[in-house]
């Protein structure tokens, strides 16, 4: 009798540990791959921050425009890869998605979040910024954020890819990717992504890039396998 209790407690403990790492997703299948481009991408220009000396002096190497970020082997960064169909939408996470303004740049350049999730916008610079997300589906707002002020809290109810800008510093561009799913990844310049914790089913995986458009592919997960799904986007010169 006691042995049974001990083993069941042990079993529960092990099971909890196994589930813990993937914080929101139960064990399931994985879709993984790489996003690359074909064709000639536009050359990115260096940003001139002379009009904001407090930021200009923070960048010893010139900062490049981040619209197109590439890596070795024509890999493409800042691509939002997400499940656009097949995964039921759950409740948004309690944790906030954070967007930072640092040295007159948005960090990250593209922020993925879920519809209804709390968004926190911080200003870590010595200059004022105004946050102006140019949403068309969600209400558009524009707020000033002087240095030292508390984070601005917001949230978006409807899925949308929202360009974000600062009117005071016209070179600052970013995006909020408001999605209906928790399965998403914004690629780094290696173009790699991995979406895990997918229960068996048929899914549509979509890759979105701010310049090179959108592409969708379907994949079926039967168990806990890892499906490989690469995306190749067509680069446009401008």
């Amino acid at each position, binding site marked *: 009798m006691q042995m049974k209790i001990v083993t069941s407690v042990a079993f529960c403990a092990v099971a909890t540990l196994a589930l813990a790492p993937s914080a929101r997703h139960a064990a399931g299948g994985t879709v993984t791959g790489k996003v690359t481009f074909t064709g000639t991408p536009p050359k990115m220009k260096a940003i001139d921050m002379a009009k904001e000396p407090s930021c200009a002096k923070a960048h010893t190497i010139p900062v490049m425009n981040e619209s197109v970020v590439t890596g070795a082997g024509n890999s493409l960064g800042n691509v939002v890869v997400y499940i656009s169909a097949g995964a039921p939408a759950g409740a948004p996470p309690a944790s906030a998605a954070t967007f930072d303004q640092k040295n007159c740049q948005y960090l990250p350049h593209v922020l993925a979040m879920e519809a209804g999730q709390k968004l926190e916008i911080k200003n870590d610079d010595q200059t*004022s910024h105004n946050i*102006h997300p140019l949403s068309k589906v969600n209400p*558009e707002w524009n707020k000033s954020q002087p240095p030292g002020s508390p984070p601005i809290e917001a949230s978006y109810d409807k899925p949308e890819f929202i360009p974000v800008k600062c009117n005071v510093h016209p070179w600052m561009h970013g995006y909020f990717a408001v999605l209906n799913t928790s399965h998403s990844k914004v690629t780094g310049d290696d173009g790699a992504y991995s979406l895990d914790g997918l229960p068996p089913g048929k899914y549509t995986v979509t890759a979105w890039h701010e310049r090179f458009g959108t592409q969708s592919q379907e994949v079926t997960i039967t168990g806990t396998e890892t499906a490989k799904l690469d995306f190749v986007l067509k680069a446009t010169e401008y």
Partner: protein
Amino acid sequence: MSRVAREIASIAILGVLVVVAFTDASAQAMHGLPLEGRGADTTPNRRVGRPSVGKEEYKRYCAGCHGDRGDGQGENTQWIDPKPRDFTQAVFKCRSTPSGTLPVDQDVINTIRRGIVNSNMPQWRPLPAQMQADLLSYIKTFSPRWTAEKPGTPVVIPVETPVTTESILRGREMFQKFECWKCHGTEGRGDGPSAAALTDSKDQPIHPFDFTTGTRFKCGTTNADLYRIFMTGLDGTPMASFADNIKGDQGWDLVHYLRTLQPLRTPESTLWKTWLATHAAELKPIGPGTGGR
């Protein structure tokens, strides 16, 4: 009197009336707030609007600029700047409600009456109140937001604080600290370092308000109107809301300072001129670095 003499007499009377009218107008502008500032009609419009009636009136008065679909793509749009409001987005400059929220009905009625200065939006004040309400109810049909959302809660405007030199000096510090000068310029001329690159939410170039030539604001003429502008922001434009950073009576300090920039004889500008005559050397210039007081 002969016919000729009568004609000369009527022309002379007309001439006198014209001269009187112009002198009177410029005298009022120079010696106080513009005509509109006194008793500007913001009486509540309590009529119930009828969209079907408003539709016909919209075609008559509004569609030429705002378009048959309310998207700001009327046949006149190609000739005018700034572009007419796109009602399908339900984003409005002149509101009493926080940035990102719908205006209350009276906000839109006030804009219809008052027009928008420095734009092609005329003052539709002469339209009967019922017609104004009908037009508003039809305009609302262009965006689903009006049925899905409630308007925001109007910003509370506290009782105005007295106009004192100290208030103006605090306002000047705020102009420096909140970096208004980056767009509006160190003298409020609309020539700040960021001004040239400003675009509105439809990527059209847009100018910041030039206080040194502007006697009326986009959304009114009174101190309360000015307070409301920076506490709600002008949605759809680079002008942000400062409601998170300016609280209560602080806003009046900024209003009092901004009045000193305008070409009007106001209590603020009179006080400021007197103070500057003896204390100007104490002021640090506004601008980059630790300018301000």
